[in-house]
């Protein structure tokens, strides 16, 4: 039944409602695929039979009762930073080893209510800090298109699971590109919503003012449906907007004809941009023009400062967010410390990996007495400038298109020694986080046999605009996310 792992949500839903297959069949097909491939891909950290058994049974019952909900019975994978009640959730870190949250986060619980079936927990960079999933404290995940290469990160496990046909949809989180970049590198669709669109309740925080939960899928429709069902105001997240989740679908099926799409010159010639990526993106832009979109030049003049601002703001927030990992209420703890400070210091040195410690140090330094103005406050002001760049660009266009990542998937181990080179993976995506914009990455062809992603950024609350462009491109190009050709 391997073809069951290549279905879209719509296709699967049709078969389920025709009673050609059951939700249990879908689970079984995906488990077989996982059984066959995941030893090599290593997308999953843990599996959740206690959930899929009950949820598939419940889904079949709902379908029998005539429930036509789009996600009923759809197999889903969840990134290891989203809390699920009684399921070990570790943020890819040893410090949370064994932690079973006593509650389920809002995005996940909304998808559970919509009928999704959780297969398991996917690998990620520790505390979502990284662009290759190599910072997972468990093991690296491999790109299904080339097992010697990274899947991107930090949501690399979710991207790889969807790309390998191990899950139909997956949840990730995006703080600087952690959904869009792995989606691009794995050849799937990944979307980061507007900040505040999806509740962060239950998302183990990396950088609170940047983090958003979003979907991975193999087509734009699936991403749109998944997003619509988890979005919307949550009384448990004060930063969530009261705009409804359905907003993201407004007019999204419309053609791209007459839309103005901006190409920022700074994104076009970014440092390290590969020729093959550029060519694929050029071709995609041409396809959109041919479909009737007007392509306009725009400028984002502070692009060169984005990475610097991001690498103050995100570490500063993370240094505070990670202070709760102290070995008192959950997670690991070192034995026989002589006093509390020593206990804290040893627990955290042992429990956090290199990248996490590096960022906690950086963020602590940036907030510390005497440096706050020079670093943190300065970065917040530059954040204002970057946001204004986008505001101005959106005066001239409805959406911005660019490459998602300047490179295709790179070999495992090739950037782990040089943090700055790894950070540069996010230059095209992190602006969207700093400005709170919705952004989607959609496959736009191949370079050197590896997937390339087209990023569409829209103004705040313009998910429908980004989705519309992505969908129109998908339709016009005929390029569809494929299940990676793994035997």
């Amino acid at each position, binding site marked *: 039944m391997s073809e069951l792992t290549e279905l879209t949500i719509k296709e699967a839903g049709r078969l389920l409602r025709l009673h050609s297959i059951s939700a249990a069949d879908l689970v079984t097909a995906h488990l077989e695929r996982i059984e066959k491939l995941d030893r090599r891909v290593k997308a999953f950290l843990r599996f959740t039979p206690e959930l899929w058994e009950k949820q598939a049974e419940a889904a079949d019952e709902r379908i029998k009762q005539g429930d036509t909900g789009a996600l009923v019975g759809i197999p889903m994978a969840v990134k290891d*930073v*989203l*809390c699920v009640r009684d399921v070990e*959730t570790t*943020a890819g870190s040893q410090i*949370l080893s064994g*932690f079973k*949250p*006593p*509650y389920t*986060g809002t995005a996940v619980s909304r998808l559970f209510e919509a009928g999704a079936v959780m297969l398991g927990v996917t690998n990620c960079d520790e505390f979502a800090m990284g662009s290759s999933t190599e910072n997972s404290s468990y093991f690296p995940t491999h790109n299904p298109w080339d097992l010697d290469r990274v899947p991107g990160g930090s949501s690399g496990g979710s991207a790889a699971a969807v790309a390998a046909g191990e899950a139909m949809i997956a949840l990730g989180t995006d703080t600087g590109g952690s959904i869009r970049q792995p989606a691009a590198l794995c050849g799937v669709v990944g979307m980061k919503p507007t900040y505040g669109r999806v509740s*962060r*309740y*239950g*998302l*183990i*925080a990396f*950088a*609170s*003012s940047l983090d958003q939960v979003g979907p991975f899928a193999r087509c734009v429709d699936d991403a749109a449906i998944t997003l619509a069902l988890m979005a919307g105001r949550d*009384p*448990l*997240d*004060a*930063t969530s907007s009261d705009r409804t989740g359905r907003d993201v679908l407004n007019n999204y099926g419309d053609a791209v004809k007459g839309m103005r799409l901006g190409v920022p010159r700074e994104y076009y010639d970014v440092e390290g941009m590969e020729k093959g990526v550029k060519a694929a993106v050029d071709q995609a832009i041409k396809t959109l023009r041919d479909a009737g979109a007007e392509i306009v030049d725009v400028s984002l003049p502070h692009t060169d400062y984005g990475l610097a601002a991001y690498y103050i703001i995100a570490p*500063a*927030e993370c*240094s*505070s967010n*990670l*202070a*709760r*990992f*102290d070995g*008192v*209420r*959950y997670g690991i703890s070192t034995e026989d410390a002589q006093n*509390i400070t020593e206990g*804290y210091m040893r627990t955290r040195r042992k429990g956090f990996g290199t990248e996490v410690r590096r960022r906690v140090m950086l963020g*602590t330094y940036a*907030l*510390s*007495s005497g440096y*706050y103005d020079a670093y*943190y406050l300065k970065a917040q002001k530059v954040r204002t400038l970057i946001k204004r760049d986008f505001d101005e660009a959106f005066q001239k266009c409805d959406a911005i298109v660019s490459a998602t990542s300047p490179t295709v998937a790179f070999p495992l181990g090739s950037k782990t020694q040089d943090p700055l080179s790894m950070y540069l993976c996010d230059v095209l995506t992190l602006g969207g986080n700093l400005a709170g914009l919705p952004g989607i990455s959609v496959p736009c062809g191949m370079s050197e046999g590896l997937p390339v992603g087209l990023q569409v950024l829209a103004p705040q609350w313009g998910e429908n605009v980004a989705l519309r462009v992505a969908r129109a491109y998908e339709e016009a190009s005929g390029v569809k996310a494929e299940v990676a050709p793994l035997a």
Partner: protein
Amino acid sequence: MPDANRKPPTPASPDLPGERGGWEVVIGMEVHVQPTTRSKMFCGCAVGPLGDPPNSNVCEVCLGMPGTLPVINKAAVEACLKTALALRCEIPRHTKFDRKNYMYPDLPKGYQISQYDLPMSINGHLEVGGRRVRIRRVHLEEDTGKLIHAGDKLHKAWESFVDLNRAGVPLMEIVTEPDLRSADEARDYAVALRTLLRTIGASEADMEKGQLRAEPNISIRRAGSDELGVKTEVKNINSFRALHRAILYEVSRQSEVLESGGTVVQETRGWSDAEQRTFSQRSKEFAEDYRYFPEPDLPPLELDAAWIEELRRALPELPGSRRERLVSQYGLPAADAVLIAADRDLADLFEGAATAGADAKHTANWIIGEVAPSGKFPTAEHLAELVKLVTAGSITRDQAREVLLESVETGRSPSAIVAEHGFAQVSDESALQAELQAVMAANPRAVEDYRAGKKQAIGALMADLTRGAPQANRKVAMKLLERLLG
């Protein structure tokens, strides 16, 4: 120098003035007040009573579980704004919360959500004993949990235990300028603040329950100097008396240190009620750096004028202006007005009774003498009735006390009680004459003595009258008896 080996200074005299041996005392107060709310500051956990089992009033939010987020309690914001208005503070339009970062086991998230550079209110004042104490700021934050240490002394503890029931309980922090000049003033300020908080219903402000925690910052300087001395902050104070004693102690200690050529160390000291002294509590290996930054999980607050106006209109009359009104409107002596205005319930009772026609001064006497000490409140109508019965001479003071008690306990009106007990005072001369003649007949010896010039013998006759006819109006009876004997 280890504090434990220090000889405690001679107990300070309770009437120690603000200036002592040429030293001027300078005190600023930080008071933490728990606003009256049903749930915690940032989560829905109930604000439970003290003494709940440990970690039983907690949820994933106040335990600082990964992935959880705070949401601001509206009632706490309103209590803080009401307090700020009552303290005549300016309320800025924009306010926000910040994170104060430090790791300690009673602080589950590793940061306290507090307010740093844009507090909810600034620049207010409170009148205390005719002086204006400036309020620097009033802001909102969350409480920490409770630590229990194994072993009797902190430094010998080899492990500690954490109870997070209190973690996340709302707190208002009210900070004065260093305007207080003596232990008496500091205590009076704290009392006045409590009265204010209770009057506006912002907090029960019970010190023993930890709902009001006063932390004085104390320094001394040479009288006439403009510079501030090095201050110490004193914690663990759980009564107004302790506040007073702790300040007196610190002033003595600091002046001894300075007079013996030493320097005061800026530090936090704890007050020990058992030992009646302060002790050095926190001398950290390095100065804490709290790394404040805006709390990204909480959107800022826009305090729009209509909301503030609505809260302002809903404020009851504040103790200061009520005190003045009790004097001007009812002619109460200032001392009585102070006592009655200090307690909203007493003041309401007074005004209710006075409005119902009872004599103001008598009503005040009954409230100060009977109601306040017993804490047993009649209704205003019943008190008015009682006062009228006494002033009309219908019942005696002793009878009235009994009637008051019974009225409070049963809820029945004083006149009904008086009627039932036959307490009505007998002032009718013909009725009294019969009683008195009976008394005279029963005590011929006393009558003879009186007539022989031993005027004090009348006391025995009156005593006999009171025994047989307690409801007799003694004043009327005495005059009548003198006539009968004469």
